[in-house]
């Protein structure tokens, strides 16, 4: 574990230079270039099970996610069920025993290693990110740290998209996310209770409101905690 405070900013700079595709697709391409790996995908969960592929890059990632959804098994299902990271550095019949049919299919497609990272924020579970490689072997500590940071960026990006911020400058938003402050999460819980909605919705509404008012998320959170701001169902 070698945390580097500037690594997130470096990754955002690299992201800005990737022009084609929507935000999540660009983040998948960022993973391919920076981890590095041969494919990456973002899988969304709903009601505790994988529900759809939001984005992918690289043919091998497409093969993996298609096999998973055709067969209803695979590392995305395993990670969602266990709420843990799933790492297979050497794919073979014994390391894929938890998802044998998908394991055989992806082996046939030349995939040798898969890392599946949960996309989460506190009690919020959004889905998983796949990092797929054709060469076997463990990811180096640095590569693994990069994969984790990109999974964080994907988590932020999915939350932005859920906030309906379609015209926003995502690169700007990602560089000031606000999710590292405890009071943002306290306020999210308060808003979820006031509106009777789920935690990701509450977070999305706070984010949209902060963006509309040009306020840092943490300042809006303070106003929520101090009861200086009202949230209604019309927000």
């Amino acid at each position, binding site marked *: 574990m070698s*945390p580097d*405070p500037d690594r997130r900013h470096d990754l955002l700079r690299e992201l800005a230079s990737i022009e084609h595709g929507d935000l999540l697709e660009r983040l998948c391409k960022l993973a391919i270039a920076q981890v590095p790996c041969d494919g990456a995908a973002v899988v969304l969960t709903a009601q505790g099970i994988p529900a759809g592929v939001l984005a992918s890059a690289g043919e091998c990632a497409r093969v993996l996610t298609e096999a998973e959804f055709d067969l209803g098994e695979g590392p995305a299902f395993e990670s969602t069920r266990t709420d843990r990271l799933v*790492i297979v550095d050497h794919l073979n019949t014994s390391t894929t025993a938890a998802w044998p049919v998908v394991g055989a299919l992806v082996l046939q497609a030349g995939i040798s290693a898969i890392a599946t990272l949960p996309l989460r924020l506190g009690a919020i579970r959004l889905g998983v990110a796949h990092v797929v490689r054709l060469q076997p072997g463990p990811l180096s500590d640095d590569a693994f740290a990069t994969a984790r940071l990109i999974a964080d960026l994907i988590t932020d990006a999915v939350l932005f998209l859920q906030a309906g911020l379609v015209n926003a400058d995502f690169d700007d938003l990602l560089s000031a996310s606000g999710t*590292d402050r405890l009071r943002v999460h306290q306020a999210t*819980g308060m*808003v*979820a209770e006031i509106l009777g909605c789920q935690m990701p919705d509450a977070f999305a509404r706070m984010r949209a409101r902060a963006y509309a008012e040009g306020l840092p998320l943490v300042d809006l959170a303070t106003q929520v*905690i101090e009861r200086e701001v009202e949230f209604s169902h019309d927000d």
Partner: protein
Amino acid sequence: MSDPRTELPAALATLAEALVTDFDFIDLAHSLARSTVDALDAAAAGVMVVDRSGELQVVAASDEDTHVLEVFELQRRQGPCYDSWVTGQAINASDLSAQAAWPDFTRRALELGYASACAVPLRFRGHGLGSLNVFGGSPHEVTSSDLHAAQALANLAAVGLAQQAAPVNPRDLAEEVETAIHGRIAIEQAKGMLAVQAGITLEAAFELMSAYARTKQAFVRTIAHEVVSRQITAEQM
């Protein structure tokens, strides 16, 4: 400070007991923070772990008051906790009012009535995991035996964090740290919900969850997830 001959064994026993039972790191960290306050006769203590971006995140504090949490949180990139994590050494600031380093942190700590601060690293086999931070209510020299006591308590907690990653490798250790950070965030989300449900403060919301977790012999983190998924309400606690 108080006599470590009486308080320290009790604190060590509490932490060691937690290590031989099924435990969650956040609960262990709360126990560490409260034991440290007792053993060192301190005003407050907090436990921070380093996240994947290299910033320190609060996982537990002896006092759940929002302002107290904030003064720990201010140390993500500066302060005795941060310096202790970076250097792997104990940091001793016996008089905060004479402290020029860490201006934002020092100003807020003084406003909250803290006069001294020290921090010891949480580390395991060469991996810096975070640090334990202690505040005193009056300026005084923290003795080397106080620092040793704090380090002994912190080491036990570090073993606890590493034990959950067994067999220990950096990747599993990172995963345990990650679980602790998201557990703490889930607790904050649940505090917000309970505060609105029961019309109580965030601090009282934590106490409610903590007391309920004790009666159910469950982890606070588990209760927080049940609150967020609306399996349990403030009234039912």
